[in-house]
Every structure is written in C-alpha cells, then in structure tokens.
C-alpha cells in the first residue's frame, strides 16, 4: 500500500485520536489479535495448581471436595436444562447425554484433537472446514457480525481471527445490506468471501445483493465475471426465539436461478458441503441449523482429510427402504430417521433421503427411490406454501407419475408465524409422529384421516 495507509481492515487497537464517531472507551480485544498465537492453544485453562508440603494437604482435600460438590451441582442444573430443551424438540436420551458431556469437553479450537477419535460436532466440522479452506486459498476471507473477536456468535469461527488475522476475519457493523454488498463487490474481483449472517432472518436485509447482485451477474454479463461467494449461517427454527427469528429460507433462495443452496445435516455433510461451497465458482447459500451445531456425528477418515469435498447436487440415502420414500433436509433428517425406526417396528420399511442440496435438487435420486417404493412423503421445517416439498412432489408427479401407488404428501411447518409458547411452538414444526402418521397414510395403514378444518 502506498502512503501511510498500512492499517489492516478494522482496528486491532482503539484509535489514538478521539474521533467523534468512535466510542470513547472501546473494550480492549479479548484475544491477542496482533500476535500469531497458535490456533491449537486453548483459550481457557482450568487446571488447579497445588502447593507441595504436607501441611497444606488437608486444605487441598477440602478444596477438591468443595470443587466436586460445585461441579456436581452445575452438572445437575445443566442436564435438567438440556433434558427440558431436548424433550421439547423430541430428543432421545442418547443425545441428551452427549449434550451434557459436551458441556465438559474443553473448548475445542480449530484443531483436530477431538475428544473421540471418529466423532465430531457440526460446529467442529464447520470450523475445521473454514480453517482448511482459508489455509489453502489466501483469497478466502470471512466477514460477518461477531465472527472475529467474539469467536463467532455460535462459535463457528472460533480461533480463526487468531490464526488468520484481522485482514481475513472481519468483524462488521450491524449493516447487512452494506456488508453483503461489499462482499459481493469483492467477489466480482475474484476474491472468495464467506459472509456469515447471524441468522438467515437477517439475510432479508441483504437479499437484494444476494439475488440481484450475486445470483444474476454471471448471466447478465454473459459470463464476463462470476461471483464465488458463500452466504452461510443458521436457518430455520431454534428454540423459543419467536416469529422474527425462526423462518426457514430454503425455498426462497432455492427458487432463484444462479444460486446454489446447500443444507447439511451431519458433520460429514457440514464439512464436505462447506468445503465444496467455498471452492465453488458460483454464489452458494449455505443454510445451517443452530440446534445441530452441538450434535455429534461419526466421521470417516476420508471426511477428515483436508481435500474432502462432497458433490453439489447429490442427495444421500441415509437409510435404505422399500415401502415409502421420505425426503428431508437439515435437522429434519434426524426426525425422519427416528420415524423410520418407529415405522420399521410396524413393518413399514422407509427409505430416508437426506437432500443435502436444495438447488440443484437431486431429482434423479428422489425419482429412482420413488420408482422403487411407489410412495413419497416430503418433510421440511419451513412454510408449506410454495415450499421445497411442493417442488419435490410436483417434480415426482412429472417424472414418475405412473409409479405412484398413493398421493404424494408433504409434511411441513404450520402456516403460522412461529409462536413463542413451547406447546404452540411444538405444534408449529413437524414432529416424529407427524412423519410416522403421514407415512402410514401413504401405505394405507392409517385408520384415521386428517380432520378437515
């Protein structure tokens, strides 16, 4: 850079002059952003140092006893909280336990020292994918609210600021329209931005740039330039966050030519799809799910490799079956698998398809499955009208009508803004029993019919 302008983007320390537009007492950074600290260092230490002579031994034992009591108290409180939350969204005892255990794992930065050799949480998967792609390609940078010093609102970008510096991990002001436009402009110049929306509800502030500036530019310029950008963040319902923070945007973005829309379920999905998205030369909308971040999944050795990528536009058959096809994506895949277990006990063999890619949609896999099972249930969390399920059902009717033995069905979120009260919220999103009931209907096994309003 010419002249005096060698400042990195943003500031690692507060300004020396009292500019009117900066707060007078900014907080000092919590991480050593101006040192190249290793990402492998944990930011918290919890070891207790002991003094040596035997005269203090009784006090040591007293201290340890008190610490155990305190930790035990915290465990009970947290487990109660987790049980309540998991119960309200249909969690099983095994996930409750793993949730509780997760509380006690030390904060894991972007290292591969996972507590269990072949298991990884979705959060760790996303973090490692970002880390590896930023390491491999200097044009990749991360931009969003709280992605840097705060370590990410959901800790997805933990450790990245420390490792890559403030030129590549940029904390933005709360101005989605502005910073999304800036990121798209940078992508015009062949940089590779990863834009984080704290949730996709806020992407609506920036949706003009996602659609009109990013998605359509390659077409409008007849290929003169492409836009290799990724928009990522949590999407859909969390728990108790109300109407403005719970919408699923899959069908909105997936209807737009020029965009790719990816939605991971497992950790392997998260790693492989995010790496594919960052490497992709087109704009990708990468819809995560907040409630999946803490869930742990087994990962293969192949998935841990830094060159691992999943193909875009390919669905995964999570569970093979022969009686009914259930399509799902993101968090709902977990519910669909549970529904398939219940159905199996009743003699119905359900095939569960994890879509992974909403645009382009893997119609080949879906149709091949329906031609085998002859029945289709689509499940999604978002609003039903003009939703992903509507597209899948229609496309199966177009391509495989003769193979259908029952009407196609879609299970979706309720046609209402998300309510806050827990019981109403539970009614507003699909539950396992909704999927089971619909599958049985498709198999003509249900003696009940939906009550007409």
């Amino acid at each position, binding site marked *: *850079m*010419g*002249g*005096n*302008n060698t*400042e990195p*983007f*943003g500031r690692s320390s507060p300004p020396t002059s009292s*500019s*009117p*537009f900066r707060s007078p007492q900014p907080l000092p950074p919590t991480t050593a952003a101006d040192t190249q600290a290793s990402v492998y260092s944990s930011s918290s230490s919890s070891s207790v140092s002991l003094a040596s002579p035997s005269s203090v031994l009784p006090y040591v034992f007293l201290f340890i006893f008190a610490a155990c009591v305190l930790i035990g108290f915290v465990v009970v409180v947290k487990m109660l909280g987790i049980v309540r939350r998991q119960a309200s969204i249909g969690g099983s005892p095994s996930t409750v336990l793993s949730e509780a255990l997760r509380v006690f794992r030390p904060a894991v930065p972007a290292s591969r020292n996972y507590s269990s050799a072949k298991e990884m949480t979705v959060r760790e998967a996303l973090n490692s994918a970002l880390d590896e792609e930023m390491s491999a390609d200097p044009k990749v*940078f991360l931009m969003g609210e709280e992605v840097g010093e705060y370590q990410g609102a959901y800790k997805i970008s933990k450790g990245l600021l420390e490792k890559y510096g403030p*030129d590549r991990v*940029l904390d*933005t*002001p709360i*101005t989605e*329209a*502005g*910073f*999304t*436009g*800036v*990121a*798209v*402009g*940078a*992508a*015009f*110049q*062949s*940089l590779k931005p990863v834009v984080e929306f704290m949730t996709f509800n806020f992407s609506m502030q920036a949706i*003009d*740039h996602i659609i*009109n*500036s990013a998605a359509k*530019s*390659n*077409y*409008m*310029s*007849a*290929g*003169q*330039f*492409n836009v290799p950008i990724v928009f990522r963040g949590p999407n859909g319902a969390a728990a108790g966050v109300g109407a403005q923070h719970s919408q699923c945007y899959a069908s909105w973005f997936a209807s737009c*030519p*020029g965009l*790719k829309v990816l939605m991971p379920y497992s950790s392997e999905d998260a790693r492989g799809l995010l790496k594919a998205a960052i490497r*992709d*030369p*087109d704009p990708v909308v990468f819809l995560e799910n907040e409630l999946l971040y803490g869930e742990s999944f087994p990962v293969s050795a192949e998935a841990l490799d830094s060159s691992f990528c999943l*193909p*875009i*536009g*390919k669905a995964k058959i999570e569970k093979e079956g022969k009686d009914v096809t259930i399509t799902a994506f993101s968090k709902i895949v977990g519910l669909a698998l549970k529904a398939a277990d219940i159905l199996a006990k009743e003699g119905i063999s359900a095939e569960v398809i994890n879509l992974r890619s909403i*645009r*382009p949609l893997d*119609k080949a896999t879906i149709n091949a499955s329906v031609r085998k099972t002859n029945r289709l249930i689509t499940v999604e969390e978002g609003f039903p009208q003009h939703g992903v399920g509507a597209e899948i059902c229609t496309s199966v009717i*177009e391509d495989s009508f003769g193979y259908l033995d029952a009407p196609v069905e879609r299970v979706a979120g309720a046609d209402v803004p998300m309510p806050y009260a827990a019981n109403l919220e539970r009614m507003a999103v699909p539950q396992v029993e909704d999927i089971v009931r619909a599958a049985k209907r498709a198999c003509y096994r249900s003696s009940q019919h939906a009550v007409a309003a």
Partner: protein
Amino acid sequence: MALISRSTSTCAPLFRPLTLFSLRHVSTDTSPITVDTSVPFTSHNCDPPSRSVTTSTSELLSFFRDMSLMRRMEIAADSLYKSKLIRGFCHLYDGQEAVSVGMEAALTKSDCIITAYRDHCIFLGRGGSLLEVFSELMGRQAGCSKGKGGSMHFYRKQAGFYGGHGIVGAQVPLGCGLAFAQKYSKDEAVTFALYGDGAANQGQLFEALNIAALWDLPAILVCENNHYGMGTAEWRAAKSPAYYKRGDYVPGLKVDGMDALAVKQACKFAKEHALKNGPLILEMDTYRYHGHSMSDPGSTYRTRDEISGIRQERDPIERVRKLLLSLDVANEKELKDIEKEVRKEVDEAIAQAKGSPAPEPSELFTNIYVKSFGAEAYGADRKEVRVTLPGY
C-alpha cells in the same frame, strides 16, 4: 440549482503555436498547458485542489472527440428506441459526458469504475466499442453482454468496469467491495462508485461508506448530481442536497460536472487521497438533457427554458470547443469535421450492429452457473424444454 452562467477559461501564457495536420489525427502535442476550471472547488473536511489544471492540447482535442462521440451515440440510441429497435429501459447520458471523460483522464484501467443504469458512456470511456453498445441495446450477439444484459447491464471486466446495475444504490456497496478487493490484493488502485442524487439517500450507501471509512478502503463515491431523481427534484427528495457534505466525517468535494478539466482535477485529487486516507465523496454538478429514461419526456418536472439554458451556458462540449478555438488548436471547420467523422462512425456501428444476429436459443440456458453439476433447467413448457445446463 445554481447555474453557472458563463464559463471562464483563462489561457495561461504558456502555449505554443501549432501546425495542424490532417484532422483525421488528434493533435499529438502533449506539452503541458494550464487551464483554470470554471469555478473553484468547494470542499468539506479537506483542502480543495487548485483550480488550475494541467492539460495539453492533445488531451483537449481528445476530450472534444470523445464527448462528441458519446453525444452522438446517445442521440442515435434515442432514434433507435423510438423505432423500437431498442426495448425496455434506455437511460441516456447526454449532457453528462464530461464526468466520464474527465474521470478517464485521471484514471488507469487498473482502477475500477462501477455505476448504475446510465452506463452507456461510462462503458465507452472504459474502452468499450460502439458496436458492442448498439448490439447490446438491440439485443444482439455482438453486444458486450451478448444481448443478455440490455441497456442497464454493460460490463467490461478487463478494463475494470463492473457495470451497469439496475437497483438504485446497490452499486455503492458493490463499489466499496471492489475497493476492498483492491486493498486486500495490494493493487495500489482505487474504485470510483458512481450514483445519482436520487440514490444519495439510500441507506446502504451510508452503510457502505461507514465500512469504507472504518476499514480505510480506497473507494471514491461520486454523486452525479443531475438534480432530478427520475421526476423528483433534489430539494423534494433530500433534506440536505449538499451531497458532498453528506458523508459527515468523510471529506467531500463539489465539482462543476460540466467542466471536463474540473472533473479530471477532482478525480486525480480523489485518487491520491483515497490511496492514503480512505474514502472521499465527489459531487459532480451536472445535468441530463433527456428525461430519466426514454419513457420520460423530461419536461413535466422541468421547464424547457431550464434545459435550453443549460445547453447554451454550460454544455460540456461547447466549453471545450470554445477552449480549443481560443487556444487556436483548431478552427471551427476542423471541429465540425471531427463531429462529422464521429457521426459517420456511429452510423457505421449501428449498421454493423443491425447485421449482428439475435442470440441462439441455447443461450437462454448459458452462464447461469460456471459449474452446473449437471443441473437441469426448464422452459415454460417443462415437458417440451428440458435442458442439462452446460459447465458440468
């Protein structure tokens, strides 16, 4: 709306008598001369540059030629639109040529320009050809966007021109993003993001300006203030129409946008400033003779006297013509010959563009993705038109 009633051009004593060659060739005399701008610059939070501009007779002749070419091109586009060869939107730039031409004189092709939909002349200034302009306007294959963009979506990436945008104000954050990339890649270049007085009130502009100032991006925001946002005069849209001051902590400069030399000086100043100190706002006081677009006569919200008054007193081409005549660089006939030449060029380009075919039907489905992964796309009748997108 302050109207500058009389252009004042003082000739510095330093000029040489020229022998003029055939006016097929622009004068190659690049020895520096100094000319004053019409009015001094007004500044906000910075020291304005001097109103004495270093130029040369060859540069002045090139200004004349380029602006005449742009003027002729836009008038020809008007006729083509009226004969329905151009469809949809057509926003014409005649009257504002000095902004494009002055800016190009201060920039290189490694600097970037981004603008809104009034982009035909900016594209030309960045090295685009008349053939590409007319073909694109008429939706033909020889167009700069192969006929798929239209009037509002001209691009020329190899020359740092990033469009051509239809959404008012969107180009400003995009422009700050281009500047971000320049800083990220250590290009030592700047981005000029052009917008109008109508777009100046857009929130995203201030969001982008905040980010540009916070991160010291080499972005220059250029408000082409033609005093009307479509049919709404600036005093009806903006509480403060002093657009060069609207950046608050960001310095600004108000420039006579009908004076190509003033534009050049301001852009040169802005580029040096942005490389050292971050963003700056330039307000170009300019005027468009046409309405907002071809569907707007432009006379329902302004008087014909106002339009003809500015044409007589501030026209950018006339200003340069008077300068050339007073400096004795060319005589009336020679300048008229240049105009005739330019007119011929435009007519030839239009004839050639008319000969360019419409895009192939298969082009409907190209350039959606760089990498399609075998995705399919459909036409209106899905059973009839089903295509695997190219670029697997």
